[in-house]
């Protein structure tokens, strides 16, 4: 494989925003997650829990409620009093409708999906009719008319109980007339709506119980507490053959360290998310039919897309945050050592640039050119392009003004290898090719979307010789464009799992695609067909441990001098695939560390296979080859993230 010097980078101060709301869509098995900075992410639970879409956040948006209605339409309501509908094809916000009731605290869709009910600060409950284009205000209910409220409203009220105010964080209304409320005293209470009396009260925590979600069949519900515990309640018969049933607390789960602000109940799993930024999906064993690895706990912590770009020539890293970008130059060392040594730095890493974005929107994507002289980033409304000049050790920045009108929001930005061209994938499905000149730019071409539907292009890859551009949408196959002749060259056949990473190899122009179910394909662009090696991999199948990995592959790169090597990584491992070695079958050991040099050749041959995996650096956010002998690995230890989270509930442990 070769020896590499590895730059271990830990100064990317990435802290994901906490999860505020979670909404599950049964029809399409998708999960919408809204975070505290206004970002909304859509996870496809059947595609190996991959985050396939996201909507960037906004400073003024403070979402309090998220719900699916009428099948596939997503609505959110927040403290700024507006109801937003998200366009899942074009990946932008369709419209924002002001409800004129002050901050909106809760929102629910009717079971038929045609109406939307919101609870506002001024005490009114407003009913909206969902029309094909928009939503329309229908009625206004006063605070007391609870008979007109439909089933399963989640509402927030103030209730004064004893000395301290007890806040009811969540309410669920069942069809048999039982109302379940969870409050800040740590109680789950069952009320009878006909008589208005308390049936049963469970004290389950010392801290607030902050969220509740009921399953569709109404035989179980889940609550989340501020201590990070999630409790599962089920309707169980009193004795084994009686018809009388009662609610019993069955399972506690402790997967979070901070408050669980939101829970959701899918038919087979409990989903919870909170301030500690993890999204935890816990399949319920009794509901899962096939007990295989799919029934394991899934914890999604790290982003499923790349937030870091790298300029190889100048050894620069560009970190993308929500409202600013940071440009760092890597340190250098002159020492040498053996395998496993830590070399001292002769020159520390340098924080060159801290670029703040204008406006309240979050940054969607950013990129630095390989030569290091251009930085481009995009928010939901604007596109920014900067030119950098280096004089000795100083850096000066100049903004390229007068961006063209069609470049207002980009989902992905990519520079060509020689830094003369800029490729921008916009959220209308178009792909723009722009030529970069000394202080300005020239628009060369726009590739329009193919079949008339608006497909948002999510991932881009360009070949090192600059001839080919690969773009993947969310459902169509990967399109390959000829940049020199500015037309579509071919399309890789569509696969039913979304693409997580794309890259084109130098010289051979093989397109390597990684999907969310951990399949890796290699497609030859000049020949317009899959390569021999890729067909072998598909015939034999990948190792079962490889397929059971949790996190998607986010970056693929190549060695300039070794065309048989593919370097890819996910959050917990990085792997060099050597195409010249035989493929592992299910019986071989997948994770084999480098055998010591004095072992026999026979042993070596038995354990040598194409997938060389290393788990030394984790959790990895980015790993790339800087030159032939250097790697850069950006790690983000979980403790560093937890250290910057809001304070958790105090836990008294014996002996401390």
């Amino acid at each position, binding site marked *: 494989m070769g020896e590499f010097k590895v730059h271990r980078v830990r100064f990317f101060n990435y802290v994901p925003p906490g999860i505020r709301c979670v909404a599950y869509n049964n029809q399409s098995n998708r999960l919408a997650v809204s975070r505290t900075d206004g970002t909304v992410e859509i996870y496809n639970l059947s595609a190996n829990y991959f985050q396939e879409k996201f909507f960037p956040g906004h400073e003024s948006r403070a979402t309090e409620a998220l719900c699916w209605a009428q099948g596939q339409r997503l609505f959110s309501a927040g403290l700024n009093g507006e109801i937003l509908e998200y366009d899942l094809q074009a990946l932008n916000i369709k419209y924002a409708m002001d409800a004129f009731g*002050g901050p909106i605290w809760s929102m629910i869709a009717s079971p038929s999906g045609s109406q939307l009910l919101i609870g506002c600060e001024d005490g009114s409950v407003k009913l909206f009719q969902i029309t094909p284009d928009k939503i329309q205000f229908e009625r206004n209910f006063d605070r007391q008319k609870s008979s007109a409220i439909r089933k399963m409203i989640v509402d927030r009220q103030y209730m004064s109980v004893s000395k301290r105010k007890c806040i009811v964080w969540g309410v669920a209304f069942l069809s048999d007339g039982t109302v379940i409320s969870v409050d800040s005293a740590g109680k789950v209470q069952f009320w009878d709506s006909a008589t208005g009396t308390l049936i049963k009260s469970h004290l389950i925590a010392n801290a607030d119980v902050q969220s509740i979600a009921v399953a569709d069949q109404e035989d179980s519900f889940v609550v989340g507490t501020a201590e990070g515990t999630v409790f599962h309640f089920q309707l169980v018969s009193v004795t084994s053959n009686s018809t009388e049933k009662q609610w019993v607390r069955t399972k506690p789960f402790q997967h979070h360290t901070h408050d669980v602000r939101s829970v959701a109940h899918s038919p087979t799993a409990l989903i919870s998310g909170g301030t500690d930024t993890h999204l935890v999906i816990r399949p319920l064993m009794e509901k899962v039919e096939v007990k295989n690895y799919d029934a394991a706990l899934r914890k999604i912590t790290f982003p499923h897309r790349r937030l870091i770009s790298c300029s190889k020539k100048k050894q620069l890293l560009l970190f993308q945050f929500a409202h600013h970008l940071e440009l760092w130059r890597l340190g250098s060392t002159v020492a040498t050592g053996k395998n496993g040594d830590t070399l001292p730095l002769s020159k520390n890493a340098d924080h060159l640039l801290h670029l703040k974005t204008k406006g309240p929107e979050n940054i969607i994507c950013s990129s630095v050119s390989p030569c290091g002289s251009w930085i481009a980033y995009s928010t939901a409304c604007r596109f920014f392009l900067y030119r950098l000049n280096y004089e000795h050790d100083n850096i000066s920045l100049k903004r390229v003004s007068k961006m063209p009108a069609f470049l207002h929001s980009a989902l992905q930005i990519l520079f060509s290898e020689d830094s003369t061209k800029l490729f921008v994938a916009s959220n209308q499905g178009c792909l723009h090719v722009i030529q970069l000149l000394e202080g300005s730019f020239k628009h060369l071409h726009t590739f329009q979307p193919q079949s008339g539907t608006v497909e948002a292009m999510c991932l881009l890859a360009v070949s090192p010789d600059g001839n080919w551009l690969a773009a993947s949408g969310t459902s169509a196959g990967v399109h390959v464009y000829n940049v020199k002749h500015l037309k579509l060259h071919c399309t890789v056949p569509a696969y039913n799992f979304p693409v997580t990473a794309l890259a084109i190899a130098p010289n051979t122009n093989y397109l390597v695609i990684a999907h969310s179910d951990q399949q890796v394909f290699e497609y030859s662009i000049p020949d317009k067909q899959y390569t021999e090696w890729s067909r072998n991999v598909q015939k034999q199948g990948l190792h079962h441990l490889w397929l059971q990995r949790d996190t998607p592959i986010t970056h693929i790169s190549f060695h300039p001098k070794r065309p048989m090597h593919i370097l890819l990584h996910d959050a917990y491992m990085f792997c060099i695939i050597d195409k010249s070695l035989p493929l592992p079958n299910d019986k071989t050991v997948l994770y084999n560390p480098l055998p010591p040099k004095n072992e026999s050749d026979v042993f070596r041959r038995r354990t040598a296979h194409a997938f060389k995996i290393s788990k030394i650096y984790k959790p990895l956010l980015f790993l790339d080859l800087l030159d032939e002998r250097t790697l850069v690995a950006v790690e983000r230890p979980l403790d560093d993230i937890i*250290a910057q989270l809001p*304070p*958790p509930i105090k836990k008294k442990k014996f002996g401390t």
Partner: protein
Amino acid sequence: MVQLRPRASRTPASAEAMVDEGQPTSEEEAEHGLLLGQPSSGAAAEPLEEDEEGDDEFDDEAPEELTFASAQAEAREEERRVRETVRRDKTLLKEKRKRREELFIEQKKRKLLPDIILEQLTTASQTGAKKSPGKLKVSLHKKREDCEKEKKVKVEKVQSVSQRSYVAVRLKDQDLRDARQQAAKAFIRDSLYGPGTNRTTVNKFLSLDNKRAPVKKAAAQFLNNAWGVQKKQNAKRFKRRWMVRRMKASKK
């Protein structure tokens, strides 16, 4: 104020003060006021200022008598004059407005493209309505900025604008809305992290395991790297400068 005929009455100041602020429509009222003013002025006839020489002569005289006819004639004259001025003002304003309207119409005509091009645009846009909403936005933006370009498309006529590029909002509403949003956020923050909640720092939380381990370790964030950052920077700079000075000194 009543326009009194300049009359050297005994107490001219007090007489004016007595009369009503509102304008009497006829001379009768003014006369009435003056008549009224007299006895009180008589009552308020304190020792006069002796600066006016002419007053001595008129001290004992009664005020002049006005005939009704002359007073009426005067009043009518006033009214006519006032009516005339009002009519003149109105006609002047009307003319001004008319002129301004004509000017606007001319300007609009100048800004609009000739009809032929508009027709072409309508047909072109109907075929490819979704192609470039971005261009729409641009033209609306440019229109708003009032730039002096020749080609300005009046977009409302050509296409139905599905995306508004701007919204008119009342600032007062926005402040109110912001205030309510802040209040709501503060409520959530106080109820979760405010007084009375049982919260602890992240450091203590992460150190619980260290404290309960068989071999007790230090807290998770034992070192405070954020302490004295400025001091450390100053020290580094000083050290560099000191080294340079030593080098120079040793060279000499």
